[in-house]
C-alpha cells in the first residue's frame, strides 16, 4: 500500500467538497498566501487529510482549533511548513506534469533552438533544483533524448540535478523506481528507457543517466549559487515553499541571474512566485504557467 492510500483512511478523506469543513478552505487560502501553493477545490480533501494527520499528531480535536494554531503568531511559520510536508507527501513521480512537458517540447525547445542556432556551440543546459529522488531530471532527460533525434540533433544536452538532502541524491543516482513513482509513465517510455530491476521495479537506462550530473546543493549557499550560470531552463517544483519570504526572494533573484536571456523557470503545477520578483514575466502555455526571462531581442526587459 502506498503512503497516499494509507493516509486516505482518515475522518476527513471524503472526496466530496460539500462535506468539507469550510475552515479547510480558509487554511487553503492561508497556505497560498504564505507559500504560493494552491490546492484546487476538487483536491481540497487532500488538504483536509493532511490537516487531519497533523491534528492527530498534535492532539487537536477540531479544525477550528487547528486554524487557531496556524494563525497564532508564535507557531504559524513552523506549523504551516509541517502541514506542507504532509500535503506534498507522495506527490513526486515521473512525468508528473504533462502540460509542462508539452510546453517544453512543443513551444520552448523550437524557440530556443531557433534563437541559438547561430551559436557555434549548440548546447542546452537544464537545472532541476531540488530534484529529490531523481524523478524530475530523469523525466526531462528522456524527453530531451526523444528530441535528440529531431529538433536537438547535434546538440549537447546537460542536465544538472541538485538537492539539499544527501540521501535523496544517492537514491536519485541509482535510478530505480517502483510502480507508484512510475504511475504516469507510459509503456512507450518504460520500454525505451528502462530495464527490469527486481520485482515490479525498473531502472533508468545508462544513456539517460549519462545526461545528468547529480550533486548536493544548498539553494541558500550564495557562493555556490553564483556559479550556476548559463541555464536555459530551471525547474524547481514544490521546493521554495519551505523558504521564508526574504530567503525565497534571494533564491529567485539567483535563478533570474542563473538563467540565460530567453530562458524559463518552472515551478510546481499549482505553485506561484507570489509576485516576489517583477523581472520575470509570468507566461502561459496550454495548461501551465512559467516564468520567463525576456530575451534581449524582445525588448521587454
Amino acid at each position: 500500500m502506498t503512503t497516499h492510500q494509507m493516509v486516505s483512511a482518515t475522518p476527513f478523506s471524503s472526496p466530496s467538497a460539500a462535506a468539507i469543513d469550510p475552515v479547510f478552505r480558509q487554511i487553503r487560502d492561508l497556505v497560498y498566501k504564505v507559500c504560493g501553493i494552491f490546492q484546487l477545490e476538487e483536491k481540497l480533501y487532500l488538504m483536509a487529510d493532511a490537516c487531519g494527520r497533523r491534528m492527530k499528531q498534535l492532539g487537536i480535536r477540531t479544525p477550528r482549533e487547528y486554524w487557531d494554531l496556524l494563525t497564532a503568531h508564535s507557531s504559524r511559520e513552523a506549523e504551516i511548513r509541517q502541514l506542507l510536508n504532509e500535503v506534498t507527501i507522495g506527490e513526486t513521480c515521473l512525468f508528473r506534469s504533462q502540460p509542462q512537458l508539452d510546453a517544453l517540447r512543443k513551444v520552448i525547445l523550437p524557440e530556443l533552438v531557433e534563437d541559438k542556432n547561430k551559436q557555434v556551440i549548440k548546447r542546452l543546459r537544464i537545472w532541476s533544483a531540488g530534484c529529490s529522488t531523481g524523478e524530475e531530471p530523469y523525466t526531462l532527460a528522456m524527453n530531451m533524448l526523444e528530441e535528440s533525434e529531431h529538433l536537438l540533433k547535434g546538440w549537447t544536452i546537460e542536465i544538472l540535478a541538485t538537492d539539499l538532502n544527501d540521501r535523496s541524491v544517492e537514491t536519485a543516482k541509482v535510478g530505480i523506481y517502483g510502480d507508484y513513482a512510475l504511475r504516469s509513465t507510459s509503456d512507450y517510455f518504460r520500454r525505451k528507457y528502462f530495464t527490469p530491476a527486481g520485482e515490479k521495479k525498473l531502472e533508468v537506462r545508462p544513456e539517460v543517466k549519462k545526461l545528468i550530473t547529480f550533486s548536493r546543493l544548498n539553494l541558500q549557499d550564495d557562493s555556490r549559487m553564483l556559479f550556476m550560470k548559463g541555464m536555459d531552463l530551471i525547474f524547481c517544483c514544490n521546493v521554495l515553499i519551505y523558504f521564508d519570504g526574504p530567503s525565497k526572494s534571494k533564491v529567485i533573484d539567483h535563478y533570474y541571474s542563473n538563467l540565460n536571456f530567453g530562458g524559463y523557470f518552472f515551478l510546481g503545477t499549482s505553485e506561484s512566485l507570489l509576485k516576489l520578483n517583477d523581472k520575470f514575466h509570468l507566461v502561459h502555455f496550454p495548461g501551465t504557467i512559467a516564468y520567463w526571462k525576456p530575451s534581449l531581442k524582445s525588448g521587454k526587459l
Partner: protein
Amino acid sequence: MSTSVTATIRERVKSIETMPSIPTIFLPLLDLLNLPPERVKLDEVVKLVSYDNTIAAQCLRAASSPLFGLAKSPESIKGAVIALGLRKVETILLTCCLGNAFPTKNWPLDPIVFWRHSLGCAMVCRKFSEKLEAGDGDRAYMAGLLHDLGFMVNCIAFPKEFAAAAAHASQKQIPLDEAELTTMGFTHCESGRALAERWHLADDMIQVIAHHHAPEQGESAQSLIALVHLSDLLCRMRGMGYGYYERRRVDLMGDPAWGILLKEYQNLAGVDLALFSFELDEAVGEVFELVSTIFGAAKTRD
C-alpha cells in the same frame, strides 16, 4: 480587407436572420439589452423568458448553476428574475437563446467545444471585471459570450471555407484567426461584425466582436475589448480553447491590452495572475456542466 470581401460577407450574412431556428424572442431580447437598466420592466423580461418553454426550462436550470449564484433552482420564472436581478436574467436568456439560435448540424467546429469557449470566456470576463472592480460584470459577461459570434457566422455562411481554416489551425496548432486569415482572407471578427451590425447590437458589443484580437484598433470601448481579449487568451490557455493544442506562449502582462486596462484600472497591477489562473481551473467544470444543460436541449432543435 477589400470592399468585395466585405460585400460577400454582408451578402451571406443576410441569409442568417431568415433561418427558422432563431427563437422568436431573440431579436426582442437584443432590443431589451440595449435599453438602460431603469427602462427595463420586470414583466417584460418574465414574458420573454416564458414565451418559449424550452428556453424557459433551460433558463431555470442555468440559473441554478454556480456560475449564476443561486443555490437551488428557482421554482418560477418570476422567482428567478427577482432572485437574480434583471441584468443577470438577461445574460442567462441570451446564453440560452444563442445556444438555440444556430443550427449546428455539420458545423466545422464541434459546437460543444465552441460553447465551452464562449461561456468560459463570458465567465472569465465577469470574474476579471470583478477583480478589477470595473463595475458592470454582466456587461463583461455578455461581451465574452458574444465575442466569437463570427465563428457561428462562418460555420453557417462559409462552411467549406471555414472547415478548411479550422483544419489548417488544428493541423498547424496555430490560432484559429491566423488560419482564417491565411486560408480565407478574412477572420470571424469581420463576419461577426457584419451580423452584429445587422442585428443592431450595442456599439460596445460590435467593437468587442470586431476587435477582440487587436484591442488597440478599437474605435471605442477599448477597455472592454482589452478585457475580452485577455480573458479569451486565458480561456484558451486554461482548458477552454478550441479543442486542439495551440503552440504558443502567451505573455498577458506584455500584451498591449494589459497596458490599455492598466491605464483605466490601476488595481490591475495588484492582481495575482497565477492565482487567478488557478481559480479559473476550478470553474471549468461548472462551465462544462452549464454547456451540457443548454446545449443538450439545443440539439433537438436542429
